[in-house]
C-alpha cells in the first residue's frame, strides 16, 4: 500500500469544507476567524503536497506555504485588535448585534 497524492488531498478538502461551514454559520467574530484559519491551513497543505509529489526537485510550494503562514499571522493579529476594539465599544462580539457599520 502506498501513500498517494489523493490520500493527502481528501483530509485537506474536508478541512476546507468545515471552514466554509463555520465561516457562514458562526455568529461570534472570533469563531469566524478560527474557521478562516482552517481554510488557510487546508490550502497550505495542498501547496506542500503538490510540491512534494509533482515537483520534488523544487521548493515553490513550500515557500508559498511559508509566506501564507506569515500573512495569516499578520492578518490574525490585526483582526483580533479590531475585535477587541469593537468589544470595548459595543460590549459584545456577536455579528448580529454589531450593525452600526451598516449604512
Amino acid at each position, binding site marked *: 500500500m502506498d501513500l498517494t497524492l489523493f490520500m493527502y488531498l481528501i483530509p485537506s478538502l474536508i478541512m476546507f469544507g*468545515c471552514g466554509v*461551514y463555520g465561516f457562514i*454559520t458562526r455568529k461570534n467574530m472570533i469563531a469566524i476567524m478560527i474557521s478562516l484559519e482552517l481554510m488557510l491551513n487546508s490550502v497550505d497543505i495542498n501547496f506542500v503536497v503538490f510540491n512534494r509529489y509533482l515537483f520534488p526537485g523544487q521548493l515553490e510550494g513550500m515557500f508559498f506555504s511559508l509566506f501564507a*503562514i506569515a500573512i495569516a499571522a499578520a492578518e490574525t493579529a*490585526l483582526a483580533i485588535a479590531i475585535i477587541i476594539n469593537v468589544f470595548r465599544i459595543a460590549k459584545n462580539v456577536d455579528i448580529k448585534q454589531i450593525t452600526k457599520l451598516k449604512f
Partner: protein
Amino acid sequence: MESVGNIILYFIVAIAIIVFSVLTVTTRKILRSATYLLFVLFATAIIYFQMDYEFLGAVQIAVYAGGILVLFVFAIMLTHRPGHDAEALTSHRRWLGLTAALAGVGVCGYALFSYADFAGKVITSGSTFDMVQIGRFLLSTDKYGYLLPFEAISVLLLACIIGGVVIARRR
C-alpha cells in the same frame, strides 16, 4: 512501498484532521473550538514532517500553534465569560452553510476523482533540501530566489505591528 509505521501515522493524522476540524466548527464553547483548532494544526505539522519539510513543520508549530493560538486564547479570555455557550443557530443560516460546504466539497471531490491517474501518484524520492539551501533560496535574486517577497513580508509585518498598536490603543 511505504513502511508500515508511516502508513499507520498517516491514518492517525488523517482521522485526527477530519474529526477535529468537524468538532472545531460544531462545538458550542468557543474555547474548546480553539483547542480543537490546535490539534488540527499539530496534525498538519506532522504531515509536513512526513513530507520531509522539517523547516515548514517547525514554522507551523512555532507560528501557528505558538503564536496565533495564544492570540486567540487571549482574545477569547478578554471578550467572553468562562463557560458561556453560544446561542443556537437559526435554521436558515445552518442550511445555507451546509449547502455551501457540501456543494464545494462535492465539486472539488468530483474534480479529484475525475483526475484519478494524476491523483494516484506516489512520492518519488527526490532530493531533500537542508536549511542552508532554504536560506540561500530565500535570500537570492536568481530565477528561483525569493528576496522580493521576503522583503515585502517584512514591510507587511511592520505595517501590521503599527496598525495593531494604533487600532487597539485606548484613546
